[in-house]
């Protein structure tokens, strides 16, 4: 198990290196320079700026410098906010995104699992149809539409929660709800499919033949077996959502990483874009690793080993 995790960490570092390299060269291929938006700069001033940030050196040299700095945990300094290191820029933005993301994930996955389970138990009657309708709406309505609706009714008309900003915990409620809908809908759909499968399986039949009541069968034999596959989608969903939502954070003016990402792209802030990309990749891989570990802890059939010996 430990050996497995170490090996996975090794792969993660390799992947991060590849991600860093690809983003670096992609940035170089992009049209526009970081300072071209600031058209007040004279040619001489531009030259000084380029020198200060090392942009006048050959690309391969810039690349090596970049990688070398990365090894020391130095993601460079932001072009947009002078003298602001990218790393501290990201960490200062982390808290709002993590708060909103984790709240959304908890609400979304719990309600989604519940909704999916209720739908599966009531398969093919009106409750199931209602639940299916809810999840289709949840998947197809973009979170920004929902965000705007929440803002308009709950915040603007009924004054229940703040419209935007991040001054107190109350302000995190609406964006969390807006973000929660997509994972809710996706978990509900997945949970329903899995649970319908499980309910049709032979061991559920055997559970009834043992004399378990309907409820005992659901509690003892259905839930755990349906939840195991659901965990696999929760990992990537969490990674997506914890890293902040570009759209929702912008609508609610949350100073999170999602909002920062959008700003950095608009201003051609290369170091920040690259830093954020690597950060996203890292989050994603960490979540996948956690998912796999959780999975192996819950499902007795899976043992984390390096080689596929027996199954």
């Amino acid at each position, binding site marked *: 198990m430990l050996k497995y995790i170490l090996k996975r960490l090794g792969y993660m570092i390799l992947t991060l290196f590849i991600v860093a390299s690809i983003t670096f060269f992609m940035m170089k291929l992009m049209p526009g320079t970081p300072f071209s938006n600031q058209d007040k700069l004279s040619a001489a001033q531009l030259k000084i700026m380029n020198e200060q940030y090392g942009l006048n050196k050959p690309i391969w040299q810039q690349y090596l410098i970049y990688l070398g700095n990365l090894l020391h945990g130095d993601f460079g300094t932001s072009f947009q906010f002078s003298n602001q290191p990218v790393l501290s820029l990201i960490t200062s933005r982390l808290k709002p995104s993590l708060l909103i993301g984790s709240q959304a994930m908890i609400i979304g996955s719990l309600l989604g699992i519940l909704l999916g389970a209720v739908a599966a138990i009531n398969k093919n009657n009106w409750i199931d149809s209602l639940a299916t309708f809810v999840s289709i709406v949840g998947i197809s309505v973009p979170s920004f539409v929902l965000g705007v609706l929440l803002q308009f009714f709950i915040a603007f008309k009924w004054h229940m929660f703040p419209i935007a900003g991040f001054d107190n915990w109350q302000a995190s409620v609406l964006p969390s709800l807006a973000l929660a809908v997509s994972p809710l809908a996706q978990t509900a759909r997945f949970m329903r499919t899995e649970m319908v499968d499980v309910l049709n399986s*032979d061991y559920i039949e055997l559970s009834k033949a043992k004399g378990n009541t309907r409820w005992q069968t659901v509690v003892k034999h259905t839930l755990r077996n349906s939840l195991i596959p659901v965990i696999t989608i929760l990992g990537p969903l969490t990674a997506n959502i914890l890293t902040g939502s570009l759209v929702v954070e912008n609508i609610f003016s949350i100073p999170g990483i999602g909002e920062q990402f959008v700003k950095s792209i608009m201003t051609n802030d290369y170091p920040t874009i690259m830093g954020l990309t690597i950060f996203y990749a890292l989050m994603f891989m960490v979540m996948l690793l956690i998912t796999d570990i959780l999975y192996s802890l819950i499902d007795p059939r899976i043992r984390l080993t390096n080689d596929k010996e027996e199954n």
Partner: protein
Amino acid sequence: MSDNILEVKNLNINFKTFAGTVQAIRDVSFNLKKGETLAIVGESGSGKSVTTRSIMGLLASNAVIEHGEILFKGQDLLKESAKEMDHHRGNDLSMIFQDPMTSLDPTMTIGKQVAEPLRIHGKISKEKALKRAQEVLELVGIPNAKNRMKDFPHQFSGGQRQRIVIAIAIVNYPEILIADEPTTALDVTVQAQIIDLMRELQEKLETSIIFITHDLGVVAGIADRVAVMYAGKIIEVGTVDEIFYQPKHPYTWGLLSSMPTLDTKGAKLSSIPGTPPDLLDPPKGDAFAPRNPYAMQIDLEAQPPFFKVSDTHYAATWLLHPDAPKVQPPAPIVKRAQEYAHLMQTGAVDTPSEGSQN
């Protein structure tokens, strides 16, 4: 007959489907005595599983029991509440399912799974239940059961899993054990072991067994009586010897002729040509008539009633009508009857069910 632990009377079961009403069970009646093994044989789709599931109260949700009674010790199970049926299941009625690979919960230890019926039905502590579970696992022949209680199903072989499924079925000493093709998924050696095990358990526990199979070879080794089903009806019923050596129904002839024996080994087996009728719209006359080389005009017009051959042997075929012409059964059937008569004369068989091939 008060020694019948189970009496099924005039059972009719339909399934509502989009295509219409499937008349899956059509007027089925049979008895099961205490301590005996009744085999139900028949082609796929003949209604074996539906019949036995109705006893357990485990029919699909689109099933409608149109008519009939299922008397368990004189009580009609069809009139019992869901709660009362929960009480019977896994307690005095239990069932072994066909596929050992998928019948066990993959994420629960087998000790817990075997102990579960005890916990559901008896006011018994967890420790005691687990101890009993271990004893039963030893009884069904799981080696080193003590140390394997905490193992999961995937850590056992197919044969072992089927033994575990049997352990679950017998842990509460049921009065009736229904085994729905319990050995089809297993290879022949394991099959034989499981059959031996069930026989042994039956002697110890005095259980009545309903054993479903479409493999007649298995029947001889385990059953006391045999009921042959075709298209939702029982068409012949009798003791193992009566069915194997003096069968009367052309369908039984067909089944027996398609069964491999020692001397047909290697020879080409005849299977019954044709397919069973569509149960959405069953024929007016004998459902087997279109496939029956001995069919007469009346077979197309009226369903044959049961004709009594002996006190224990009945068959539903017009051939047994006093006015019917005498026909010669297929050669293999005649040969069987002759061999049997010979063996009986020379006294070579004392317990006749072992005179057959195994």
